[in-house]
């Protein structure tokens, strides 16, 4: 398909001039204005908008997946009673890979897209601050939405305020459990035991002194019921003999 030729005749030239002037005056009289006066009126965004990340501490199994997938290296795992993520919003690019990676739905995105911080330090959001939406000062008196039909595109302003919701989706995932597929080649290094955030892997029949020396011989490593299947031991094991297995 070729683009159509533009005629050079003075008549067409004049007609184009008339078109321009006509359009300009039309807009000057009845403008198709689409500007949103932001702080006073807030735009309605879909719920799946990728915004502020909210943590549900009770669900978090501290599997470090979010911290390891983060492309911008923005998530750090801080230790409280266990390891929980904390997002550094100086680095966060709102790709929400962490939210997608979270196996238990502890991390979930909200459609709060406009956050203001007082200082760079405040932008490193702590876990405690992540557990709920930050305090919001609403200047907006009304909500604006783009109303689009086949014929027109205009702004509709509604009086009620938009509620800044948190979109919580619990992924449908079968619970998993750490499992040793080749016990014969276990080094006995107890890395899995040390890395386990829930002390689910315990050692029996030989005790470790304060200096970390092992006394006794023939130890047994045990995966107890506490295991939540975070997979840290699987990633840690130097001989790669551990896997995650679905429990039925």
């Amino acid at each position, binding site marked *: *398909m*070729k*683009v159509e030729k*533009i005629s050079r005749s003075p008549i067409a*030239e004049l007609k*184009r*001039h008339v*078109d*321009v002037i*006509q*359009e*300009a005056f039309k*807009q000057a009289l009845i403008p*198709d204005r*689409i500007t949103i006066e932001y702080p006073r009126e807030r735009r309605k*965004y*879909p719920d*799946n*908008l*990728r915004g502020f990340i909210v943590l549900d501490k009770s669900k978090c199994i501290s599997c470090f*997946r979010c911290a*390891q*997938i*983060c*492309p*911008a290296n923005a998530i750090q795992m801080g230790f409280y009673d266990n390891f929980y993520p904390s997002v550094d919003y100086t680095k966060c*690019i*709102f*790709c*929400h*890979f962490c939210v*997608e*990676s*979270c*196996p*238990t*739905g502890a991390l979930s*995105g909200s459609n709060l897209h406009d956050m203001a911080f007082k200082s760079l330090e405040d932008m490193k959001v702590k876990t405690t601050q992540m557990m709920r939406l930050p305090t919001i000062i609403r200047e907006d008196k009304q909500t604006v939405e*783009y109303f*689009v*039909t*086949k*014929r*027109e*595109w205009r702004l509709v302003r509604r009086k009620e305020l938009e509620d800044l919701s948190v979109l919580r*989706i619990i*992924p*449908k*995932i079968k619970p998993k459990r750490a499992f040793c597929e080749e016990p014969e080649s276990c080094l006995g290094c107890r890395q899995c035991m040390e890395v386990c955030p829930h002390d689910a892997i315990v050692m029996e029949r030989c005790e470790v002194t304060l200096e970390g020396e092992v006394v006794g011989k023939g130890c047994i490593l045990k995966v107890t019921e506490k295991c939540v299947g975070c*997979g840290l031991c699987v990633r840690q094991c130097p001989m790669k003999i551990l896997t995650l297995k679905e429990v039925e």
Partner: protein
Amino acid sequence: MEIKIDVPVEPPKELETLFLPIPKDYVEDVYKKDDFLILVGPQHPGSGHMRLIVRVKGDIIQEVIPDPGYVHRSMEKLAENRLYIQNIPLVERPAIMDSANFNLGYVRAIETALDIEVPERAKFIRTILAELCRIGTHLYDAAILAVFLGHTTGFMYPFGIRELICEALARMTGARFTSSFIIPGGVRRDVDERTLRWVYDATFAIERRLKSFERIFIKNPTVIARLREVGVLSKDEAILYGVVGPFLRASGVEYDTRIVEPYEAYEEVTWDIVTADEGDGYARFLVRVNEVSQSLGIIRQCITSMPEGRYVSEQICDDVKGNFFDAYGNLVLPAGEYTTLTEAARGTLLFTIVSDGESNVPYRVRIVTPGWLYLRGFMESLKGERLADLQAIYGSFGYFPPEADR
């Protein structure tokens, strides 16, 4: 006629301190020949983040030497230190508005490596995203062209229309742009029927708004006067200098990667290549304007003939939500070299991933962006034009330094 000045003209000192990519004797030669060196950019209202060293005789441009790399971010090196999945947000960054096409090219390279079969529905969604980003980029370039010509209204209208594109992307993917939505094996989330209806209506709304944009800018006599017969690239020149994309089509070459090697749902939908014969600035502009309407058509067809089914391949996982890390966290490509060609908004985009088969980061990622490919043709087309045409041709090419510098 040549006017000889007896007054000895010394090249000014600052030209030596500016680290120009040109030899010193070139500057002296310019000043001997009583030409004039004008440094446009990198911080100039009429240039992107790139310095153009313009050599003018009177008002006529003799030669233009580009100095790209001002916004070079060593994207290819950065990509070697990240997981394959972590590169997706990175490769989107060169061309912000065109993110979906860049994302698509990279992801398709990974898919060829792992030979994943992408489900049909995912293909259609990807096509919609790519075309939305194409429209957005064309509108963006049109806006830049308008402001380069001093037409502020022509600058504001496309940005206003682009707002609708961003809204559509936000509703579909959750981000206004750089939505890292396309992942190996499909897309991250299913798009429901309401959103698709909304996008379908939005295409018509965009068309209506484009009408008034056409009246006030595209068919504006001053714009036509500025762009017509300016920066002409003949068919042979365009092929010789390796111009790509709409700018190649504006010179009369019917080349489009979506036709030559169709990649997503481009075989299922009907559309035709837009070409022009003149190869001047106005033709380059009109080709992109017509491509916008073609893309709108493609989007409508995709939405009407959207098949049911999965949105991500079962080879990866049954549901991305929650399995993301397990599916992609330790992705290792088989050893080899995988190349994909994509038709980004500004032209052919090449992605090459070299994998050593062991590590979970790419051994080498090569990105050849369209901007870098047509920079030479851009420079050649400037010769012999007037100084005021520099910006007109710049806008007609829609050159985007971050994209070219990567």
